[in-house]
């Protein structure tokens, strides 16, 4: 045995080996690359082709943008500065920046008004979009349309105040009678609001707009991306409630309501938006006396709202149809009446199902607002195609301007899309 003791062992490990990093192929970016980009030969090939295409695109656009000229007074001057090298003439954006955003007729010393209205928009929509915020903030949302109207159009402050008073009056009447019957409350509220507007409208003196704090600006002077935003926000927010009403009306058991809703939806959906816009611009002028025409902006808002309401109604009808009959029966068995059943049981579920569809319509609608350029309103695209490209200085600058317009629209639409995905995750209360 002593042999074993005297014959020393060559090496005995006395401590733990410090843990070594995994092989470089089994972790970190290389693992990610292998798993995601080069998993199979076909994948690897696609990756290489895609990378090459991206390189080609960037290689041709990046130098063009980075070499861009930001200060020049005309396309010819741009070309002189570039002196034969390839580069974007971005000077058109700097020179016409206010026109692209606000149109060419909005007085330049008043730009702060729509800018402020735009900033307030975020405050106003926040409580609607993110329902974790305190509910009291909804007061701001309710006041916002009147404030924004006054900021953008200016004129006498009495007009938005009157509109607000009418709405509050209608709401109070609704509150008072809705316990008895929904119909009485609803129509009574509308009637009360109209009475207030009529009486108040007669009381406002004629020249009230002339010496107001904010100068009055007619709708014809609105333009640029501001017009797109205004049309988009107004029409989407108006068309969702109207669309809900139409969808419910279409499911109604009362034949008259059902027929009206079906005819409205099918008719509006069967007509191109551009036709409706032409009707708003051209035909309506024939039906009003020459001097008392309804504001063009209002006419366009009505037409676009009708159009998107019909689409949203169909999307929501899809949501309603997707609910199992058991939900309706459950609501009835609890003894809820129609309005309660809809408000508490049916619509919350149906609307949740409809979110992707509604967002789809909203994004499409926002982009469709550029169609107003064909009826000679100067929205962002109208400004580009009309005044800017027709000026002697900038005729021929296409890529820069249209790329800029695309960028603006992309930012807004991508934002809407991201919000809706967040909303879907937030509302996923788990039926799966």
């Amino acid at each position, binding site marked *: 045995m002593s042999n074993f003791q005297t014959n020393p062992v060559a090496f005995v490990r006395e401590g733990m080996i410090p843990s070594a990093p995994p092989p470089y192929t089994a972790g970190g970016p290389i693992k990610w690359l292998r798993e995601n980009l080069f998993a199979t030969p076909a994948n690897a090939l696609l990756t290489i082709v895609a990378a090459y295409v991206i390189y080609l695109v960037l290689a041709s656009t990046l130098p063009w943008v980075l070499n861009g000229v930001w200060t020049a007074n005309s*396309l*010819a001057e741009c*070309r002189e500065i570039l002196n034969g090298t390839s580069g974007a003439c971005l000077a058109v954006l700097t*020179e*016409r920046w206010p*026109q692209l955003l606000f149109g*060419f*007729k909005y007085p*330049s010393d008043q730009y702060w008004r729509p800018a402020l209205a735009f900033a307030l928009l975020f405050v106003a929509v926040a409580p609607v979009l993110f329902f974790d915020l305190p509910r009291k903030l909804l007061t701001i949302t309710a006041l916002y349309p009147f404030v924004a109207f006054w900021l953008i159009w200016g004129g006498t402050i009495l007009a938005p105040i009157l509109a607000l008073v009418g709405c509050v009056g209608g709401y109070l009447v609704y509150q008072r009678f809705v316990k008895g019957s929904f119909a009485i409350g609803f129509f009574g509220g509308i009637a009360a609001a109209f009475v207030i507007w009529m009486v108040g409208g007669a009381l406002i003196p004629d020249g009230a707009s002339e010496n107001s704090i904010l100068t009055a600006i007619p709708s*014809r002077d609105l333009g640029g991306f501001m017009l797109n935003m205004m049309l988009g926000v107004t029409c989407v927010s108006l068309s969702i409630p109207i669309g809900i009403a139409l969808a419910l009306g279409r499911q109604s058991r009362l034949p008259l309501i059902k027929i009206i809703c079906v005819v409205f939806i099918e008719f509006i959906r069967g007509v191109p938006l551009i036709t409706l816009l*032409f009707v708003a*611009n*051209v035909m309506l*002028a*024939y*039906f009003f*006396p*020459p001097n008392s*025409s309804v504001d063009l902006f209002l006419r366009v808002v009505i037409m676009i709202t009708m159009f998107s309401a019909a689409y949203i109604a169909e999307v929501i009808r899809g949501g309603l149809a997707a609910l199992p009959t058991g939900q309706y029966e459950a609501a009835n068995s609890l003894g809820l009446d129609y309005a309660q059943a809809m408000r508490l049981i049916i619509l919350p579920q149906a609307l949740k199902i409809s979110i992707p569809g509604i967002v789809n319509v909203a994004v499409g609608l926002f982009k469709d607002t550029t169609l107003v*350029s*064909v*009826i*000679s309103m*100067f929205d962002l695209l*109208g400004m580009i*195609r*009309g*005044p*800017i*490209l*027709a*000026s*002697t200085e900038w*005729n*021929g600058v*296409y890529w820069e301007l249209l790329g800029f317009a695309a960028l603006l629209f992309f930012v807004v639409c991508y934002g809407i899309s991201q919000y809706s995905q967040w909303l879907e995750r937030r509302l996923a209360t788990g039926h799966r």
Partner: protein
Amino acid sequence: MKKTVFLGALTVAGLAAGASAAATLDDVKARGKLNCGVTTGLVGFAAPDANGEWKGFDVGVCRAVAAAVFGDPTAVEFVPTTGKTRFTALASGEIDMLARNTTWTFSRDVDLKFEFVGVNYYDGQGFMVPKDLGVGSAKDLDGATVCIQTGTTTELNLADFFRANNISYEPVPIETNAEAQQQYLAGACDVYTTDASGLAATRATFEDPAAHVLLPEIVSKEPLGPLVRHGDNEWADVVRWSLNALIAAEEMGITSANVEELSAGTNNPEVNRILGTEGNLGEMLGLSADWAKNAIMAGGNYAELFEKNIGETTPIGLARGLNAQWTDGGLLYSPPFR
């Protein structure tokens, strides 16, 4: 069928309502502003500049009429119209006059019930080719590919011209002028054809305008002029003679620079009659005696307007051509002021 009749009746009623609103001059005076329909933007003819001021050749006509009526060239509300909305805007009374490079044709004059009061620009369809093609005449274009805007009269004119000269061509249909520019520059077609003024404006935006030439042939007549509604001859007279005053002013040598001086009285009786120091032409129109003087001071006479907006010193660089005075071999010919 019944619906059609109903809609038709409504339209007629609407037109009648528009037409019966005569005495446009009184309406304009009461409003204090002239509502003038212009294009949403055409290089040199009408476009707002960086400050939102409308500038251009057609705009100059609007300003001259406003100056004749009010003595103030800024008393104009410019109503931008598209090719599709311009006629309804005028018929419905939304605008008082339309100065929007509109071709005077029989059916527009007679069937649409408008009144063309004159011609402020004689245009015509032309051809543009790259210089290195070595073509000197449109008749050498046998077998050429031609970029042409679809659905326009230019398309029909082109077919007529090539048939009459017994040569063939290959049309490349395109939708807008912007698209045409890109297609032509990319070499998708040998020739681009549209109105000559449009060709000149397009060529002016090219990197190297000198590499392209306009062929001498003009294959159609496109007299562009301001128009008003049928049935109000007094108003039509105001617009017609405001335009004529600009043309006559050039002929008589009245410019915005010397109009003040000449209106003190000259030895030329016609100049005196135009400027209101003799006779009562203004009164006959229902305007002040110095109406034409104001119209000329607004933007200058015809030649000054032309040179400032579309003439050879501008990037568009149009020659006077047919738009020279009759004394210089052009077509401008104002009836006498008497």
